């Protein structure tokens, strides 16, 4: 067979597919996939509307013409597809960035959509509809590559349901059936969901390859009037950060942590709004800023040398390679984090412990010597940037070995030692307390542990504290006053206690990792995940994170409150939309199945159902060749003669058989009474299993079921 003949053979039309359900389901899959691409911004609204309309019309046309092939139409469609490919390659070569998958995904979505549209006009056979289903999966994958929100789950669920309906109807059509089997649909849905969940649970989360350009994009990228200035959001994302005040704007989710100096005397009201999402190889504190200067009520950043600018610009990038902070050892393990900004906020570039490279779509970034990074533009909702961070976390043994007492601050230039042990006043009570607590602790690490333990044992966590009055010291009030506070008071107290011991420490603010969404493979960080913690200098390891808040118990905890808190936390971490959709689908499916079981087709079927139930409960086997009256007689034999519940199973069976096959039904009152009797009989048969085995007059005492495994005489006359 020549090549042309082989191609012709492969492209020969299959037998026409007559199943409307199969065609409708595959069309729906394609439509959902196109809509998913539109929802991810890969297709314009106009193209989406035109495509969906054309796909529906094309499938109707294909159905009408399914028995009559149109060679000229194939030619036109082939030319259209080739034109789409030409457009795609031209677009990619002119607009795409080598290695940047994001720059290809939009044109790819358009190409696949055009292919689906053209294909829709020539899907006469079952095989063609199968290709439509497979094509819709590809289109869904293109959309999924851009999806970061749980809302995409809605498209996945709907597409999956239509896919199952399509495949089931294909099978039904293959075997000449007409209606979609309800039970098979339920089993298929459950099976696919179970396998999918198992695969998600068993497979490791995907990690971005190192050979591609990491995603970065700007949305609402207004240039700042003062490039290195800190902004904290606002309508355009360009409002300058203001010192926090009880009456001031609370900005993103009510968090005041990025409003210039970190004021521990007041607190905003944190919400549960998702402020950004992070794809990362491992969870970490997402660092926004660190502070070196403590004034008794608030933290601020200062330059190393008075008069120097706090931030300096980086002009070579992207990617921007960041210098290591002073004293930070080079090398170590790194991790890639991609941040998807959901709410316009501060122009801070978040990162894990120490950022080393940043992919950010701008020509300039601003960095301070402590590693804080600011963008020169606003970071609107939809902005994306990627950071490579050093995430080396030393073990306790390593940290103990790194700082045998008294060597704090080793490898750190003296100017930094002074900077990170700065105190506004000597704190004699705090210092005495710190010395008392750490007495006998041989290493810095042990001292930190002792201080954390003391804080955990003597203070309580609560956000319900009154604002400090002017002149009051946060640390003194927390350690010697009401001993209640939240992360800012707790971490500040530990930092100050360490500084009184001469250990370099600083305050860090940012976010905890946030709940992990296994479907999106993203940490979904909410406003209430904002946090403050402590970073302590360890020679050879640099700044290490310590979170004393984690061990501080809640104020006035009660078991019920703690349980409720845990339950609420667990509930909050569950992605709601897909969960609700899946639960609703399951409940609906089960309800339909239950309703179908509950509503028998006729009175005779209802009575027969009760008789079959009675037989099953009585341990009787029911063969396919057994008549209903025979079964009734066997059920009656479960009881001693004359003791079966009246009127007896045989009577009921005769009545049901007359109704089913003879069309002779009792009057309504009798029907009701007999149905009740049949139900009673089925209930009464539950305890008759043992009796049934000995009294069964029809079924064979033992051995295989008749008609299936009964030995037969040899056959084969005339053959050896």
């Amino acid at each position, binding site marked *: 067979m020549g090549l042309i003949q082989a191609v012709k053979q492969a492209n020969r039309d299959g037998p026409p597919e007559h199943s409307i359900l199969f065609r409708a389901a595959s069309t729906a899959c394609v439509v959902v996939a196109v809509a998913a691409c539109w929802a991810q911004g890969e297709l314009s609204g106009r193209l989406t509307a035109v495509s969906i309309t054309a796909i529906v019309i094309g499938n109707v046309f294909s159905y009408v013409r399914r028995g009559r092939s149109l060679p000229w139409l194939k030619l036109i469609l082939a030319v259209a597809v080739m034109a789409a490919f030409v457009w795609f390659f031209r677009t990619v070569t002119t607009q795409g960035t080598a290695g940047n*998958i994001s720059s290809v995904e939009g044109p790819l979505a358009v190409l696949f959509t055009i292919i689906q549209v053209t294909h829709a006009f020539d899907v006469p056979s079952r095989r063609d509809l199968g290709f439509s289903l497979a094509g819709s*999966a590809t289109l*869904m*994958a293109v959309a*999924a*590559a*851009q*999806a*970061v929100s749980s809302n*995409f789950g809605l498209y*996945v669920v709907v597409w999956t349901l239509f896919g*199952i309906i399509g*495949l*089931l109807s*294909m*099978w*039904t059509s*293959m*075997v*000449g*059936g*007409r209606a979609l*089997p309800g039970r*098979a649909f339920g089993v*298929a849905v459950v*099976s*696919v*969901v179970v*396998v*999918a969940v198992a*695969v*998600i649970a068993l*497979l490791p*989360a*995907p*990690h*971005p390859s190192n050979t*591609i350009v990491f995603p970065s994009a700007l949305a609402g990228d207004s240039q700042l009037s003062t490039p290195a200035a800190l902004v904290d959001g606002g309508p355009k994302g360009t409002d300058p950060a203001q010192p926090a005040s009880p009456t001031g704007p609370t900005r993103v989710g009510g968090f005041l942590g990025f409003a210039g100096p970190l004021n521990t005397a007041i607190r905003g009201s944190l919400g549960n709004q998702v402020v950004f999402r992070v*794809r990362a190889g491992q969870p970490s504190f997402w660092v926004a800023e660190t502070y070196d200067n403590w004034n008794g009520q608030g933290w601020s950043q200062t330059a190393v040398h008075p008069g120097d600018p706090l931030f300096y610009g980086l002009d070579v990038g992207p990617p921007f390679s960041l210098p290591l902070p002073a004293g930070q050892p080079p090398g170590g393990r790194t991790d890639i984090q*991609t941040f998807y900004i959901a709410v316009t906020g501060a122009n801070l570039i978040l990162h894990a412990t120490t950022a080393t490279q940043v992919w950010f779509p701008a020509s300039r970034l601003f960095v301070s010597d402590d590693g804080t990074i600011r963008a020169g533009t606003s970071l609107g909702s939809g902005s994306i940037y990627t950071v490579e961070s050093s995430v080396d976390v030393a073990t306790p043994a390593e940290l103990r070995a790194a700082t045998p007492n008294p060597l704090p601050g080793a490898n750190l230039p003296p100017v930094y030692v002074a900077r990170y042990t700065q105190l506004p006043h000597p704190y004699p009570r705090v210092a005495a307390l710190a010395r008392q607590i750490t007495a006998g602790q041989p290493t810095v690490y042990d001292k930190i542990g002792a201080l954390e333990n003391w804080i955990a044992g003597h203070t309580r966590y609560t956000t319900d504290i009154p604002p400090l009055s002017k002149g009051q010291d946060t640390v003194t009030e927390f350690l010697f006053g009401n001993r209640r506070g939240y992360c800012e008071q707790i971490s500040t107290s530990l930092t100050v206690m360490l500084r009184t011991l001469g250990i370099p420490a600083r305050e860090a603010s940012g976010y905890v990792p946030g709940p992990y969404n296994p*479907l*999106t*493979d*993203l940490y979904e960080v909410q406003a209430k995940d904002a946090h403050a913690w402590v970073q302590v200098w360890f020679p050879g390891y640099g700044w290490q994170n310590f979170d004393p808040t984690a061990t501080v118990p809640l104020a006035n905890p009660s078991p019920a409150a703690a349980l409720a808190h845990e339950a609420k936390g667990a509930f909050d971490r569950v992605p709601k939309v897909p969960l609700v959709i899946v639960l609703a689908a399951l409940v609906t499916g089960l309800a339909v199945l239950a309703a179908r079981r509950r509503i028998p087709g006729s009175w005779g079927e209802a009575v027969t159902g009760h008789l079959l139930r009675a037989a099953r409960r009585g341990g009787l086997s029911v063969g*396919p*060749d057994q008549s209903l009256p025979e079964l009734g007689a066997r059920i009656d034999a479960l009881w001693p003669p004359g003791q079966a519940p009246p009127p007896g199973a045989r009577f009921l069976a005769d009545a049901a058989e007359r109704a089913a096959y003879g069309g002779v039904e009792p009057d309504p009152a009798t029907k009701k009474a007999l149905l009740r009797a049949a139900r009673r009989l089925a209930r009464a048969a539950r305890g008759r299993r043992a009796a049934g085995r000995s009294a069964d007059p029809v079924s064979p005492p033992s051995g*295989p079921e008749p*008609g*299936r*495994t*009964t*030995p*037969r*005489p*040899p*056959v*084969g*006359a*005339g*053959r050896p």
Partner: protein
Amino acid sequence: MSRAAPAADPGTDPFPRPLRAAGPVIGTLVTLGAWTAIARTSGSGWVQALGAVIAGFLLVGLLGPAWAARRGHCTIVSGPADGTAGRPVAFELVTDRPMRVTPVGPAGPAVVTGDGPRHLLVVVPPYRGELVSLEVEAASAAPFGLLWWSKRLTLALPRPVLVAPRRGDPDQAGQSDGPSRGDDAARVDSRVGESRGIREYVPGDLRHWVHWPATAHAGALMVREMEQPADRPVTVEVVLPADPETAERVAERALGTVAQILGQGRQVILVTEERSGPVRQPVDGPAQAGRRLAKAVPGGGPWA
């Protein structure tokens, strides 16, 4: 055909086997491999989640049919009592789920059972014999139709089907010609038949058939001419050789012979060897002869 089937196992082969699995399995592996590569390259969780759903489709589609085929039951609930080798025989088949049932022993066209529980299963027995069961390949691709899994079933028939041989050319050489041979007449009871006239004597005629008045009148030896009895039986003995093909041809010829003789209005006594021993009984029609020949086994001999 059932004659070669294991006699005591009309049950099932419990382990279905995939049919032409290479394509779907390779396709699945390639799809999932490509999908994993895309998921890992793009780093998108939704791609991986969608890939998990696709994996669910493919795994359920590839392995689900094994479960469906394993659980599927087929039963023959009715069928004819007789059949003829080389001609279709239809049975009523009941399945508990949609399946594709292909008769393989004897062979026949496949039946798909998606539109109801009862279907006609047609087989074409190639040989005569006593058909007590059918071998079928029961296959399912449920729930998605991506891959067929099949198991072999031996379906017991509700009653045996006696498959007659094809009607072959009659065996002329073996037929006796009673009226032309006096020796044959010697074996006929003298009281059989009625006188219808006088004819000349031929050697072999019985002495008491001589009609003396006519002899005297004609001057030659004359005998009474008797009517041939209408039910005068012709004995056909069928000796089947051990070779199945040869036996089949012999049976076909025997049926053709018997049918021809019966067509002449004469009775036939058919002598065959059955499992229970030699059977020598008259047959009243080709159908009955076919049944007898269906049950015949090799062996026996002249007047066994």
